[in-house]
C-alpha cells in the first residue's frame, strides 16, 4: 500500500469511533502489538525529546526503503508512535522525507500535535522524516 492509501484506511478506521475512550482503546491495542525495539536502541541517543513519557525510535535503510522500530513507556503514547510506524514503515525514504501526514488532522488527535505537548505526534513525525532525509542524503552522495 502507498503511504496515502494507509493514511486513508486509518482515517476510515477512526471514523467509526465517536468516543475518546474508543480511540484510546484502539491506540492501546496498537501500542501493545508494536514489536519491541532492540534493547541496544533504548538509550538516550534514540529518545525523542520530552519529559512526560519516553519514546525511543530507530530507523534502518536498505535499497531506498526505510523501516522503523519504536517503543514507549506509556501505552497510549506507544500507540501513537505505532500509528506512525504503520504509515511510514517500509516506504521509500524519498517519499517519507516529504510526506504530508494529513491523517493526523483528520483522526481527531490534533491536540497531540501541539509542539509544547511532550512526545506529541509532531515531534515523532518530524524525527521520522528527519531519519528519512538523513539516510536519503547520505546514500545519494555515495
Amino acid at each position, binding site marked *: 500500500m502507498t503511504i496515502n492509501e494507509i493514511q486513508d484506511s486509518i482515517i476510515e478506521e477512526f471514523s467509526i469511533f465517536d468516543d*475518546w*475512550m474508543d480511540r*484510546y482503546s484502539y491506540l*492501546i491495542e496498537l501500542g501493545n502489538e508494536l514489536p519491541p525495539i532492540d534493547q541496544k536502541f533504548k538509550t538516550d541517543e534514540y529518545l525523542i525529546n520530552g519529559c*512526560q*513519557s519516553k519514546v525511543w525510535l530507530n530507523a534502518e535503510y536498505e535499497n531506498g526503503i526505510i523501516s522503523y522500530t519504536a517503543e514507549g*513507556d506509556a501505552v*497510549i*503514547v506507544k500507540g501513537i508512535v505505532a500509528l506512525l510506524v504503520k504509515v511510514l514503515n517500509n516506504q521509500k525514504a524519498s517519499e517519507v522525507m516529504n510526506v504530508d501526514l494529513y491523517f493526523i488532522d483528520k483522526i481527531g488527535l490534533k491536540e497531540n500535535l501541539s509542539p509544547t505537548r511532550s512526545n506529541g505526534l509532531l515531534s515523532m513525525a518530524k524525527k521520522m522524516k528527519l531519519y528519512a532525509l538523513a539516510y536519503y542524503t547520505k546514500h545519494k552522495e555515495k
Partner: protein
Amino acid sequence: MVDIDLQKIREDFPILNQKVYNKPLVYFDNGATTQKPRAVIEKINEIHSLTNSSTHRGVHYLSGLMTEEYEASREKIRAFINAKDKSEIIYTSGTTASINLLAFSFGEKYISEGDEIIISEMEHHSNIVPWQLLCERKKASIKVTPFDENGDLLIDEYKNLFTEKTRIVSIAHTSNTLGTVNPIKEIIDIAHSHNVPVLLDGAQAIQHEKIDVQELDVDFYVFSAHKIYGPTGIGILYGKQKWLEEMPPWQGGGNMVKNVSFNKTTYNNLPYKFEAGTPNYVGAVGLTKALEYIENIGIENIRTYENKLLHYSTQELKKIEGLRIFGNSKNKISVQIFNIDSVHPYDTAMILDKLGIAVRTGSHCAQPVMDHFGIDSTIRASMVFYNSFEEIDMLVEGIKKAQLMLQ
C-alpha cells in the same frame, strides 16, 4: 463554625461551570494554579476599563487613583500576613522571582566562599536552582535536609546540618508534591538558635492556613498570587526590615532609584528599592480582591473543609488496587501524588483528561522528590475548597476505568 456553602462558592468561579469534551470539568490541578473568583475577574476588568494608569509617576487624576489602590493593596497584604510594616512587602512576579531576588541580593551581601545554605529534599526547583546559581557565583555549597518515607522532614538531621558556615535556611512551608506541612516554628527556632535567618516558601501554604510572620518570627516569606485565587504574574517577598535595609538592590531601573546620574545613583527607600520598572499594579489589586474573598469565607473554614477532602480522597484512593500514595504525613494539605502498579501516569492522566478531569503528571518540578522514591513521575490531584466529594468519586471512577483499559 459555618460550613462551606459549596454551591454558592462554585457559582463564584465561572470557569468551573463548564464542560470539557462534553463532560463536566473536574479541576484538580490547583497546586499548579487556582481559579479566580468573579470578584477578582471583575476588578481586573474594572481597572482596565476605568482606572488603568501607571502608578507613582503621573500627576494626573487616574495615576493618583491607581497609586492609591496599589498602595492600599500593599497594606492589605501586610495585614493578611501580619507584617510589622508595609515597607516589608515587596511585589515581585511570583514565588520564583521572590526566591531569585533573595538568593541574589542576600547572597551578594552575606554569602562568601565556603559558606553553606540549608534547603530540603522536598523543595521544588524554584527553591533549589537559585541557590545553586548563587553557590556557583560564590563558591558556596548546599546542605539538604532529608525526609522520611511518610514525607516528614528529619528534624534531627536538619539540626546536624548547622555549622558556623551556615548563612541561611530556605525551606518549603508546605511541599507541592508530598503535601507535607513542615514544622516551621521548630525549623525557625533551631535556625535562630544558630543566628541563621530563615526563608519559608509559602507557595503551597498561604492558601490553606493563616500566616502570621511576626508570630512565626520568620525572616523571609514568599508566595504567588495565582495560587491563592489571584492573578498570575504577581507575588510577594516579605522580609524583615533589618534584612531588607541591608540587602543591595537586585534589578535596576525606574522606580527603584532616588537620583540617577552617570557619576552616582542613589537608591529609593524600601520597598521601592526592590521594585524596578513599571509595577504590576493590576496584579497587586487583583491579589487584594482574592485575599478579601478568602477572608470572607474564612481561612479556618477553608482549612476544615479541605481537611475533609484530604481524608475522603485518601480513604477512597487507597481502596483502588495497586494504587500507591506518596506522601503520608499526618500534617498534610489536600494534595495527593500517586501511581498505579504497571501503569504509566501519563496514560492515566490522558484518559482522565478525556473524562473531564484535570490532574497533573510528571515530576511536578521536584525531581529530587521523585528520586527519593525511585520513580520518574506521578499523578497529582490537588484539591481546594471549591472541589466536592462527588468530584473525588469521579476521579476514583476515572482511575478505575483507566486501570481497566491499560492493564
